[in-house]
């Protein structure tokens, strides 16, 4: 029996209800706004908990550069709020315009291109509150930018896909937003040249916000590197000139063009209507082999975060899912019948799952 619980009473009462629900349910499946439908496997017999009703800004002190949010808060709201104070979440949360919630963003580890410069969600999440498998409310981490007390539950929850507990409150460290941005797009005929340039830039002392490697028409017309820099406006021209000495520039994007380009990238617009979108953690050295394979099978793909993430957009088939191994479907249908948790876990992961959710309620 699937039931949708979306309580609308006051926050504390709602949390108590959710605790009760966890205690009394056998299987639970947590969803946010479902902007990443790839996470939502069929959950027969599981109670579905929807978090968007648990939303809002708990506290925000711009002078402290720290914001605390309820899990169901839409990321777009947060982005707009921070922007008013010249601040931002530097990890470029994904699918903002598709309604992504902050809880879902953490649980799915949905960081975008900007993760390159200062780090991902794990690096900005300071504290959390969650309901564990026993129905207890647990706080981990803190509200200050530096904290080494106790186990680091906040990091554990990043990428946990709702399998370790119901995240309902999160505290983030935020950064001052660069006052201006510019983007250079460089084109290469060969992949290895593009990868070499990407590595060279990433190892250079140039302060780069994001580097994305994008095959043009599935690689048939070459590859482009999109390189974004940001900072004080009066220094930007100088830095752009310098950047141009590294790569053959085919396009310069500024102001609104720059904004639009990256907004589209973080919304994963390129992957729309291409079947499923799969995320693979990789390193730059893996790109060559992977791209060859994709190119042969006419599969669209992008390499994000300076070659640390491969996004593959494809219609699933069995052959693929076996080859990919460590991959996560973000959007679209799942490759095979996916029962979610537990997948293959090592002893450490097993022990943690057991400790936090001994009856394996969260799937």
């Amino acid at each position, binding site marked *: 029996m699937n039931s949708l619980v979306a309580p609308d009473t006051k926050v504390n009462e709602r949390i108590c209800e959710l605790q009760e629900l966890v205690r009394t349910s056998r299987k639970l499946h947590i969803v946010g706004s479902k902007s990443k439908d790839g996470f939502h496997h069929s959950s027969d017999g599981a109670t579905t908990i929807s978090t968007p009703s648990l939303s809002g800004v708990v506290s925000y002190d711009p002078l402290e550069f720290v914001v605390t949010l309820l899990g169901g808060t839409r990321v777009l709201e947060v982005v707009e709020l921070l922007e008013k104070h010249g601040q931002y979440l530097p990890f470029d949360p994904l699918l903002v315009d598709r309604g992504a919630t902050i809880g879902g963003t953490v649980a799915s580890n949905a960081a975008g291109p900007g993760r390159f410069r200062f780090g991902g969600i794990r690096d900005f999440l300071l504290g959390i509150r969650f309901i564990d498998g026993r129905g207890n409310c647990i706080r981990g981490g803190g509200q200050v930018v530096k904290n080494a007390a*106790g186990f680091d539950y906040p990091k554990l929850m990043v990428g946990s896909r709702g399998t370790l507990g119901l995240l309902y409150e999160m505290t983030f460290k935020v950064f001052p937003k660069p006052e201006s941005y510019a983007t250079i797009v460089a084109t290469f005929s060969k992949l290895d040249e593009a990868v070499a340039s990407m590595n060279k830039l990433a190892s250079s002392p140039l302060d780069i916000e994001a580097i994305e490697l994008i095959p043009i028409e599935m690689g048939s017309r070459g590859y482009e590197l999109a390189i974004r820099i940001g900072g004080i406006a009066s220094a930007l021209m100088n830095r752009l000139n310098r950047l141009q000495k590294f790569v053959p520039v085919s396009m310069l994007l500024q102001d609104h063009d720059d904004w639009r380009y990256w907004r589209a990238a973080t919304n994963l617009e390129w992957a729309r209507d291409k079947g499923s979108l799969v995320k693979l953690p990789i390193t730059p050295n893996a790109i060559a082999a992977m791209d060859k394979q994709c190119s042969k099978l006419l599969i669209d793909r992008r390499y994000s975060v300076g070659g640390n993430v491969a996004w593959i957009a494809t219609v699933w088939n069995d052959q693929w899912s076996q080859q990919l191994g460590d991959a996560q479907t973000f959007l679209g249908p799942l490759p095979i019948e996916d029962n979610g948790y537990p997948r293959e876990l090592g002893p450490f992961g097993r022990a943690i799952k057991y400790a936090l959710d001994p009856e394996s309620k969260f799937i």
Partner: protein
Amino acid sequence: MLSPFIAKLSEIYPDARLLTHDAGLVSYESDGLTAFREKPIAVVLPESADEVIRTVRCCFDSHVPFVARGNGTSLSGGSLPVKNGIVISMNRMNRILRLDPVQRLAVVEPGVINLNVTKAAASHGLLYAPDPSSQSVCTIGGNIAFNSGGAHCLKYGMTSNHVLGLKIVLPNGTVDTLGGESLESIHPDYVGMFVGSEGLFGIALEITLRLIPKPEVYRTVMCAYRSLKAAGDAVSKIIASGLLPGAMEIMDNLSIQAAEAAVHPGYPLDAAGLLIVELEGEASQVDEEFKRLHGLIEASNPYFFKEAKDAFERQQIWKGRKSAFSAVGRLSPDFIVQDGVVPRGRLGEALEEIQRLSKQHGIRVANVFHAGDGNLHPLILYDGKQKGALHHAELLAAEIIELCIRFGGSITGEHGVGMEKRTYLPKMYQPSDMESMFQVRRAIDPTNIANPGKMLMDGDAPALTTSGMHPLEKAGVISRE
């Protein structure tokens, strides 16, 4: 006559690497926090991951607790030997196994010294960012266990933010691999959970670190103020302006005196508060940032201002700052280093409160801190030879810790809970939070042998029995190989 347990260890180690004589044991009885001493029953000096794994299994089979130790620099007593336990001294496992300048990562053994990673990376124009003050001594393994910070956390985060992958041995001798080489992952962030677990989850055997490009330029300034509060206010203004310095540090007069005597970095000896700010990054950006910083500092009205004119002067400024804890040894035979965090906006308030407490108790407190992070390091000075002095110092320390909790901060920013602050952890967290940590700990270390007594008070966590099948074994959560 060897005990059966020592006899088992001697199957793993040659005599020279299994210490059981007095001179060997007393040498390991303290780490960087000498207020605690405990003599281990043996010290082993493994030279390979395999030896560590066999040692842990040996401990698991015999229910003997162990603590892994690097170079013993913990300021919270984290590597203090456990009663009736052994010390696994990791400092000989100090190889950098691989350094990949293109993908910007290093695979290292846990005993490698922090600064040696930085040195190895430097020849490729790269940097290992976390820089604890003890970076010339402390090992990466210890940094992992305590999620060490440093002056440059402000921009790039603590140790945890720079660890990509880990090979670990769990307290029951099982080996696991967490994370990998990519910056991203699709699993729960187990690496993040392991880092900072203070040795309670086992021992890291192999560590993959992230390296970043070395900043093109540094611009480092020192400014001196007539009051500590004025220095704190300057920090608040700089943060509010939206500048993101690589580091922002404050030292008070006592620590200035001590550091100047030790290193001669040219600190103004009459300053009540010395502020060090460092901008780093691409030259043209930093030049613009510097103009703004200069304006802000001018407005804060320091009576002394100096920019490091070359790499040597910069190095001296930092050397002074990083020597401050130890240099305080010149002022007092003994001291307790505190590590609390307060919200940055309440820094000035916290400092005044600490000064008040210091006066009230009649105990000198020196202050050195990572102002940009709100991470305070009050050094409470006492003379251990005077009766009751340590106890009195601890009372003051307790008040400072409680102040940090009351202000919404943390009891530790980077030194960890260890022995020293374990009684305060339950004051920072609710009973249900604490219970959850015990549950995790029990699931990972059911026999309670991995650095027991640190971070979590032992009394609350009775060791589970190991006779017969453990319930977790039945559940398939743990296994003995």
